[in-house]
């Protein structure tokens, strides 16, 4: 420990320092140390630094290896698969062969009517459901944060509870509340003289939106609420003394400060919308209004397991992943622009 007489600068604030190695490659500490401050040249010190970086590599290695296996290789493989197609001979007698198809699968995806329809459907869904859900979450968070409310703890837990219920189970649960005969809601409506059909072609998207909102509004509320609680109270006190109403405080002080949290919930909601799958899959049992290509993910599932067209399914997945990435990144950029 001789090289360690003076305290090292805090790693978090210091610029990228001692030596190479990002956990996947073996630490090489030549270039890195040479470019570093003079102290780094001392042999004892550089040996120490390299030993430390080896430890960092060891700590990072399990995650890095699994990450490559579960993210990098599958995505690469899907991209690769999407460039091929299976050709069957005219009579279907010979063995099918896999041939390079270039971007054919992608042109097929964008020419596919059911794909475009399903994308349009989730876009419409997202444009309505995400603002409604986040609006509700925001309203609840602001109300619970304003000090007039009693029983705050109870309300927070009550609103959050649906998050603990698996999406598929939530869908099963709501499907029972939608289906005539067993549903107390349809029952109530009938007694009041209103015929409600939650599962018709006109209402089914709203019914799905309701399930998603029910599952996630409380979770988003809690994120916003937590962010609100971390704002120093003095800010509101001052405004209050100046005669600001609760509403104006919420609008002019709390809302701007909530922007990062709203961005976070917005990004995750957009991602959630594009991957809509479990809810429509469950409701499909009850409603004929849901086709097997109702959402993009259902379509890719259908392509892979219904039609055994893995190459086409891979192309759909790649397109969706890119779209998700671009959308959430764009949203991030858009909503952080102007705020430094």
């Amino acid at each position: 420990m001789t090289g360690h007489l003076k305290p090292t600068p805090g790693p978090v604030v210091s610029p990228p320092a001692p030596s190479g190695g990002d956990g996947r490659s073996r630490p090489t500490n030549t270039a890195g140390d040479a470019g570093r401050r003079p102290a780094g040249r001392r042999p004892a010190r550089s040996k120490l630094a390299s030993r430390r970086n080896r430890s960092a590599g060891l700590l990072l290695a399990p995650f890095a290896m699994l990450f490559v296996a579960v993210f990098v290789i599958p995505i690469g493989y899907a991209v690769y698969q999407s460039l091929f197609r299976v050709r069957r001979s005219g009579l279907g007698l010979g063995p099918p062969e896999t041939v390079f198809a270039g971007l054919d699968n992608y042109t097929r995806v964008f020419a596919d009517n059911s794909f475009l329809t399903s994308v349009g459907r989730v876009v419409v869904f997202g444009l309505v459901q995400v603002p409604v859900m986040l609006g509700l979450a925001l309203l609840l968070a602001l109300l619970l944060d304003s000090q007039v409310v009693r029983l705050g703890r109870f309300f927070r837990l009550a609103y959050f509870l649906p998050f603990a219920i698996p999406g598929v189970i939530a869908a099963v649960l709501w499907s029972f509340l939608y289906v005539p005969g067993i549903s107390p809601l349809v029952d109530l409506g009938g007694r009041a003289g209103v015929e409600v059909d939650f599962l018709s072609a006109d209402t089914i998207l709203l019914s799905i939106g309701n399930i998603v909102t029910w599952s996630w509004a409380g979770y988003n509320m809690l994120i916003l609420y937590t962010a609100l609680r971390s704002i120093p109270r003095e800010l509101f006190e001052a405004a209050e003394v100046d005669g600001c109403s609760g509403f104006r405080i919420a609008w002019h002080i709390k809302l701007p400060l909530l922007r990062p949290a709203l961005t976070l919930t917005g990004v995750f909601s957009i991602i959630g919308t594009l991957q809509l799958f479990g809810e429509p899959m469950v409701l499909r049992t009850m409603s004929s209004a849901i086709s097997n290509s109702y959402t993009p993910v259902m379509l890719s599932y259908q392509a892979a397991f219904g039609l055994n067209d893995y190459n086409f399914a891979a192309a759909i997945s790649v397109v969706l992943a890119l779209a998700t990435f671009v959308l959430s990144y764009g949203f991030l950029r858009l909503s952080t622009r102007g705020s430094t």
Partner: protein
Amino acid sequence: MSSRQSATDPHRSRPQRALRSGRRGSPAAQLSTMVLLLAVAGYFLLPVWWLVVSATKSSGDLFGTNGFWFGSNLHVADNVTKLFQHSDGAFSRWILNSVLYAGGGALAATLIATMAGYALAKYPFRGREGVFAVIIGAVLIPPPLLALPLYLLASAAGVVDTYWSVLIPSVVTPFGVYLARVYAAASVPDELIDAARVDGAGELRIFFTVALRLMTPALVTICLFQFVGIWNNFFLPLMMLADDKLWPLTLGLYFWNSQLRDQPWYDIVITGSLISVVPLVVAFLALQRYWRSGLSAGSIKA
């Protein structure tokens, strides 16, 4: 002075609240807020209440009685017995599978993510920010979109329809690494690490004896969220597992539910749904203070 002091903790101070309510809102405004909040609570809680009530009903009562109140007699024991005997006890097997996937997966994921997050927070190696950016990018990839590529790869590798095909993807949580890094940077002081080094402790030992203990809240948060994520996972097992002996609860219940048109076993699906929900609700209630801190770390750093 009292107002100054209680400003940090308004919920607990009565005089403060009285002062505020006088200034902030009329009794009418307070009442309408309360009514609104109660109505919303009803929206969130009634479906769960319906599930609880329905799990106590016989098949006949399910269709014949008021959905939001108990039937003529309690059928809980019958329903549970029927559920566990159905299809040669498939349900208990699915419970065990879910516990294995979610429990084993979450524990492994937590350790792996914490190690990585700590390394990224405390070792300023070259390329660190690049590695971190890639991990953050991966957070933005929705799991269902990854499931198909995973399936293609798994079928090429011949591990489809095994426990591993679901377990291995479950132990990787980029969001966990992100949380662990944020938390390690904030809660493990560099001075402490340096002191341990001066005392002659190795880097790994410092991590396992000093850092892990300081990061306990983050560990619990990551573990809980990963547990919920795996427990709720549906798309990946749906693709990977054809053998119903390997199914987790969600997949099994989904399958039973999809057969309802031909098989009116509503009582079984309802009771099974309730039982599958209980562990998570209990975990969330018991571990409240942990996941709250995790949520705040997530929202502040966004």
